[in-house]
Each structure stands twice: as structure tokens, then as C-alpha cells.
């Protein structure tokens, strides 16, 4: 069922295209820089530092999460793109399983997101945060998990979309709310109950909280991590498995 060479070549294709499209790379990097240094600095004057962490430092884990969110969704939406431009057929008529296609897309999407998240880490010196080598690898590990989760979710959505018309709806009614209800820009535990419940079913909330555990080590709520690390990792892993399974199933049915 799982064929390695097709998975490899599906990934290879995504990487080649990713590095060829410079504008896409630039776009995903420009967004967090804008948020951090424009919004972050602006808000810092309103919010006093706590536990030694400024607001700017507080939103940094959220910006890694945001980068992963956009990158992963964009990668998985490429399935709709492939379908629209016919290339999907080339894969569908090949003697490979649908599961291999889904895994290929999930793995490549994950790698591309992680690569972008790592690139964001070069901003660390400008934020006054110091991380050890160990912390760096912890960030990468969490990034892999979160990227895989969001990419799988994206593939599940892409399998339902028949055209690009749905893309804007997904962006406005899913991706943006996911970002705003994730604890990326403000703590989630102090939100009104109705919104708080929404944050609790958002996988990105737990992903960003895990980044806070790693990067804002001694922080306490509201600016530090709000859930136990074990819970964060458990929820993200569980949602990843559920999303990928559903994606593989719906892909099989739809195509």
C-alpha cells in the first residue's frame, strides 16, 4: 500500500517547485517579520513585560505557529491546484496507491513548513531571546509535529474542494480564525468562554503552546505556556493521526 519511490518523487517535486518559486518563500517569511516588528513593537507599548518576557517575545512562538499554518495549508491546497491543472491525473492513473499520494503530500508539506519555521528562528537575536542547541532541536521536533498535523488537515480539506472557489472561504473562515483563536497574539485562557471553547478545539493552540514551553521556558500565564506540555503533544499527535486517516479515506473516495 505504501510505496516509497512514488512518495519520494512526489516529495522531490514539491521541493523543486518550492525552491523555484522565490516569491512564495519571500511571502511566507515577510508575514511573520511584519507581525513581529510592526504589530509586536506597537503592542509592546500597551502590554508591560512579565516574568522577564516582553510582548514581542511572547508572540514569537505564535509567529512560528503562523508560519507553519500558512505554509502547511498552502502546500496541501496544491492538491486542488494539481487537480485543476490536470497533473493529479498523472498520479491517479499510475500504479500507485492513493495512500502513497496522500503520504507524499503530507511529508513534503511538513518538510517545507519545518524549513520555513527554522528560517524564522534567525530572528531570535533581534528579539532578545537566547536559545541553546538543545532548545533548537526541541523547536524543530515540535515544528515537525505541528506541521504534519496542519498539513494533514489541509489535505483533508483539499480533498473536499473541487475548485479554487473554495479557497477564499477556507482562508477567511478557517485559516484566519485558527490563527486568531490559537493564543498566537493573546493568551487564550483569559478569553470569553465562547471563544475559549473554540480555542480548545484548535490544534494550533496546542502547537503554539508547545513552542511557548520550549522558547519561553520559565514563563507563566498569561504570557507563558498555558497547558501542560504533555497535553500539547498528545493533542497534536492525536489530531494528526485522525486528520491523516480521514484525508486518506476521503481521498480514496473522491478521486
Amino acid at each position: 500500500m505504501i510505496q516509497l519511490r512514488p512518495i519520494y518523487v512526489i516529495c522531490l517535486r514539491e521541493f523543486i517547485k518550492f525552491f523555484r518559486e522565490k516569491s512564495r518563500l519571500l511571502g511566507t517569511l515577510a508575514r511573520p517579520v511584519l507581525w513581529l516588528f510592526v504589530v509586536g513593537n506597537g503592542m509592546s507599548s500597551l502590554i508591560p513585560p512579565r516574568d522577564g518576557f516582553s510582548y514581542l517575545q511572547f508572540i514569537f512562538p505564535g509567529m512560528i505557529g503562523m508560519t507553519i499554518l500558512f505554509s502547511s495549508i498552502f502546500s496541501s491546497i496544491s492538491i486542488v491546484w494539481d487537480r485543476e491543472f490536470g497533473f493529479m491525473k498523472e498520479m491517479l492513473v499510475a500504479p500507485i496507491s492513493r495512500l502513497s499520494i496522500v503520504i507524499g503530500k503530507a511529508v513534503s508539506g511538513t518538510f517545507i513548513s519545518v524549513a520555513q519555521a527554522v528560517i524564522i528562528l534567525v530572528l531570535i537575536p533581534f528579539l532578545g531571546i537566547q536559545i541553546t542547541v538543545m532548545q533548537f532541536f526541541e523547536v524543530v521536533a515540535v515544528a515537525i509535529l505541528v506541521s504534519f498535523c496542519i498539513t494533514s488537515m489541509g489535505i483533508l480539506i483539499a480533498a473536499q474542494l473541487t475548485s479554487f472557489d473554495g479557497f477564499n472561504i477556507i482562508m477567511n473562515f478557517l485559516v484566519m480564525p485558527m490563527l486568531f483563536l490559537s493564543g498566537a497574539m493573546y493568551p487564550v485562557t483569559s478569553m470569553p468562554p465562547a471563544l475559549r471553547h473554540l480555542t480548545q478545539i484548535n490544534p494550533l493552540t496546542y502547537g503554539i503552546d508547545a513552542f511557548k514551553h520550549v522558547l519561553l521556558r520559565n514563563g507563566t500565564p498569561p504570557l507563558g505556556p498555558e497547558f501542560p506540555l504533555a497535553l500539547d503533544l498528545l493533542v497534536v499527535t492525536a489530531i494528526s493521526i485522525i486528520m491523516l486517516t480521514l484525508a486518506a479515506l476521503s481521498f480514496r473516495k473522491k478521486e
Partner: protein
Amino acid sequence: MIIKVQNLSRQFKSLTAVDNVSFSVEEGEVFGFLGPNGAGKTTTINVLCTLLAPTSGNASIAGFDCRAQPDQVRSSIGLIFQDTTLDTGLTAYENLKFHAYLYNLDRKLAEKRIDEMLEVVELTARKRDLIKNFSGGMKRRLEIARGLLHYPRVLFLDEPTLGLDPQTRNTIWEFINTLRQRERITVFMTTHYMEEAENCGRIAIIDHGRIIAEGTPAKLKELVRGDIVRISTDDDPKAIAEIKGTFDIIARNENGGLFLETERGEEFIPKLIHSLSMRTRSVSLEKPTLNDVFLKLTGRTIRDDVLRDDKEVTREFVRSHRRAQR
């Protein structure tokens, strides 16, 4: 028999796209499905290439059942779809390499085969160029090279020259014929271009999901006995009556003129014009073509459908395309 299809049907909700179709193709043959858009050609191909499950009936390719052994079927066939399925963001080489990996070709063999196929379709010089910069004809050639890369036994061509200019169309056919002989493959193709159907050894004419005639192009043309005379007059309805009275021939309306069938058309025309009481505007003589065979069998011309209902056809096109992808 390399392709065997028995009582194949495929329904989409209330629409029967393919209706109890049976045919078989011998190894090495060029077999064509000729019919208007929406006749069920693409649906048949999609069933044969395992993209769609049949509602009922059986289909097998190279001895493998299309429903039960999809992977073996997929390995034995090469496909060229109506719309291009190349990745325009990759180079020619990358597209072929992607294909080689999907079909699990040995790495060294793949490199050799890629060069060989690029050579045949005369794209060696463009090996490292992005598909974005390719013309329609070049894309088609590359797709043919790709379709044959994994040594398939049957090549499926769905409207292989749709949207290409006549000159490019001819070039594409030269490549297909060269490759067919070189690789000793069977070709199954669909088309709604009459001239293109002439390339086939055997043709099945399909309309509303049913095969209405089958045979070699020459044999099919025999169905239209005699020549075609097209005439337009000042009073067509009256002319129909007069022709019926004088010659006992039924003339039919077509494209705003009259259409009738007769032996020895060149001798018949002077007699016809002489016998008519109204003024004749124009007259033309045509030896039978496959289009006339289609007209004779269905009362419509294939081109008619395209011209008259371009929008509707386009819509149907998009629909069948979407269906195929679901």
C-alpha cells in the same frame, strides 16, 4: 485480444454515459472511437484506465481485469488525456523522471529511456526547459513520450490533437505512427475529428453512449451509398417535395441547405438543377467521408454539434472533465 469490453455500462445519476458497449481490439491495432462531444468516449477511456468503476459489464486490458486488477492494468497502459497533465513548473526531464519513478522504472534504465524518448519526439534540446515555455504541440509530443516511457502495451489517446492547428496535428500523427511501429503497441483513441479518425485501422462510431457502427474507415463509408450532393435553393421545403417527386430521393435539411445521397453525383447535378422550378443558389458534390457516415446513422453531423452548441458543448466538456476527476 488485448482490449476486451463486454456489455459495459456506466451511469452518472440519471445519465447513462456508456450504454451496453461491447468491442475488442487486437494487439497492434489502431482502434478509434469516433463521436461527438458527450457521446461517452472519455467515460469509456476512464473506465478502461481504471479511473472509473463500470456500473455493469466487464473490461480487460492485456488479460487484466480493469476492476479487479487496477495496478496491473495501469502498468500496461500509457495515457494521453484531452487536457495536458504535465506539470508546467517542472522541466521536460523532471516530468519524465517523475513518471519513471511512479511506474517504478529502474533508475539507469529510466535515464536511458528518457533520453531515447526525448530524441524520438525531437525535444532533446529542450530537456532542461520548463514546460511553461512549451507550445501546445511540444507539450503533446512530450506527453506522448511520457505515455510510452514505461513500455506500456496499449496507448490511450483521448482527443490527442484537440486544440492544435492542422499542421501540428499532422506532425503529432507522424510521431504517433513512428512510435507505434517502433514500440509495437496497440493504440486506442477517441476523436471527433473525421480526418483524424482516418488514421485508425478500425473505428467504432459512438453516439449517446452506444456503438452504432464498427469497421474499417473504408467499410464504414460504404454505408453511405453513393455521393453527397449539397444544394441550396430559394425555396428549400418546396425543393424537397420536387426532388421526392422527380427522383424518389429524400433530401434532408442540414446547415441551412439540403443534403441528399445519390449514385454518380457529377451526372446527377445537371439533371437536378434542370428539374427544380426555383432558382438554385449553390450546389456542391462530395465523395463520402466519415462525417457523412455519422450523419447517415444519426441524422446529425459531428461538427454540427460543435458549431451549433458551442457553449453547451463546452459546458458538457467541463462536466465530463470534472466527473472524470471525481
